[in-house]
């Protein structure tokens, strides 16, 4: 996860570079370290460095990592000629490299030649069945072709061996949600919470999924997870606040007939409503009446 300070640094460098203030190389290094996706900027500034022969020779051996970064960014922006040139240069320099082979596979993918890309990746996997990145590229390939079931299969097989890879679990959860297989998505989110218990995003997503599945027990659990998100973010996450209100009203609706066993739920909802109103007043006072009417309709039903 990118921390706040790193994000600030990134934005600052971005602004500096955009205004032609230099520092392009630091910006590119930071992007590479944080693994953020900024293809257009990387392409523009990276190409500027690569085409200027003086700056290029100043980089020394780092020139090749920059070349790789620019190739990937070019493929992201669909400028395949630039990508092809970069890869050709890399291939000339490192004729036997698997890393360059991977880039060539990605270029085939970007061009839409699925069968060739699949063949290339399978041959890589034969040489080294433990290359995690190639496995993930295969999943991406299946997903791009629209074969979601194949993607799920590949991802499950990958997770069978590499079960500590939390990025893969997150990808699987999102795929399941897109297919409305909520119970499996809930399982994936539980894995994510287990590996990173202090990350509020996982709690939030898990609560969303539980709320969507429905049922009294799940709604109560969802409310608890929204509360933990509020706890972890210091009350600043508006989605969690809304979630708390919705959950409480839904629970109230479901348990209308039975005795009210909820301990202090009305307090939490009232507090969440108050926090939301305060937030809206500060940031979007025009929408405040909308908010109040929506919340009132929730409270009526509870």
């Amino acid at each position, binding site marked *: 996860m990118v921390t706040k300070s790193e994000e600030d640094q990134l934005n600052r460098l971005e602004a500096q570079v955009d205004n032609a203030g230099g520092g392009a190389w630091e910006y590119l290094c930071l992007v590479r370290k944080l693994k953020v996706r900024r293809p257009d900027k990387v392409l523009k500034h990276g190409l500027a460095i690569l085409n200027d022969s003086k700056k290029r020779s100043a980089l020394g*051996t780092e020139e*090749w990592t920059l070349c790789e970064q620019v190739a990937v960014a070019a493929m992201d922006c669909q400028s395949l000629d630039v990508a092809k040139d970069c890869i050709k240069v890399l291939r000339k*320099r*490192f004729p036997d*490299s*698997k*890393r360059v082979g991977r880039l060539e596979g990605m270029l085939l993918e970007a061009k839409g030649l699925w069968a060739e890309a699949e063949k290339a990746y399978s041959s890589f996997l034969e040489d*080294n*069945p*433990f290359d995690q990145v190639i496995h993930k590229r295969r999943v991406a390939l299946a997903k791009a072709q629209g074969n979601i079931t194949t993607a799920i299969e590949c991802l499950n097989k990958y997770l*069978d*061996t*590499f*079960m*500590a*890879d939390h990025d893969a679990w997150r990808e699987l959860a999102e795929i399941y949600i897109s297919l409305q297989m909520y119970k499996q998505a809930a*399982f994936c989110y*539980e*894995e994510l*919470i*287990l*590996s990173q*218990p202090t990350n509020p995003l996982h709690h939030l997503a898990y609560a969303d999924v539980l709320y969507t599945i429905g049922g009294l027990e799940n709604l109560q*659990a969802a*409310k*608890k*997870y929204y*509360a*933990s998100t*509020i*706890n972890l973010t*210091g*009350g600043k996450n508006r989605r969690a606040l809304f979630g*708390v209100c919705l959950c409480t009203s839904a629970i109230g609706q479901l348990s209308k007939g039975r005795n009210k066993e909820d301990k*202090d739920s009305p*307090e*939490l909802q009232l*507090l*969440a409503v*108050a*926090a939301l109103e*305060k937030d809206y007043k500060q940031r979007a006072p025009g929408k405040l009446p909308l908010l109040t009417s929506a919340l009132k309709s929730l409270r009526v039903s509870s």
Partner: protein
Amino acid sequence: MDKFRDCGDIKKDLRYLYTVQFWVFLVSRNANRGERKSRERERGAMAEDLVLDTAIRDWVLIPLSVVMVLIGVLRYFVSKLMRSAQIPDAKLVKEGQVIVRARNLRAAANFIPPKSFRARRLYYSNEENGLLYVPKGQAPNAQAQMFSDPNMAMDMMKKNLSMIIPQTLTFAWVNFFFSGFVAAKIPFPLTQRFRAMLQNGIDLSTVDVSYVSSRSWYFLNLFGLRGLFSIILGEENATDDTQRMMQMTGFGFDPTKSLGAEKDGLDIVQHDWTMPKFERRAEAVLRKLVR
């Protein structure tokens, strides 16, 4: 991940090799000089305090440390060059990941609902096909496997060689050139038992045990330069001899034992769902926010 390599690395190694050779030549020339001087002083002052020639410090202690640092760096680069691409064993990789996952489960068990925790615990420690369950027969396989697998044996031998040969050579060189005189004084008093170990070049039995020969300086450097290497060479370096020696005695990575340990740990865990507590805490947070 394979790195982009080129001839620059090999040139660096050759440069270090020549530097080491140059130092060896220079130091051995002057070691004899220091030896003669300290012998004269010793005969003169048999009393409590021996005055050691500063030439000893200049031509024995410092060069010895410098040579050991250089040899360590050389070994690091040689081991990087010699390290063959290890094809990880499928079972080992999977077990490693299982252990990480089980450990996560144990650590964060209180964050997931009790039902899912129980389901996962069963999944891991189920008698027939649980992930962590190791049937008794397979447990002692690790040792036999180590010896029978030729690749692993070659790797271990390579690692051992890269550690033993430089150590032996340096030790022999120290003994040959730097023996027979007092090199340093240890600042705290020692008992007589250490005499055999620390003073073996010095043939006088009345010299205080605190005055040691260069062999002890060699051993001191051997263990002490580990910290320096981790600063210069980064965390993972082949010069971490003592750590490797400790690992060897435990026969390295023994997955079956750690699986059993994880399973026991998991059985012990009591699930205490922290979510209700979080609800109350969230209220407090919001109350503070709203105020």
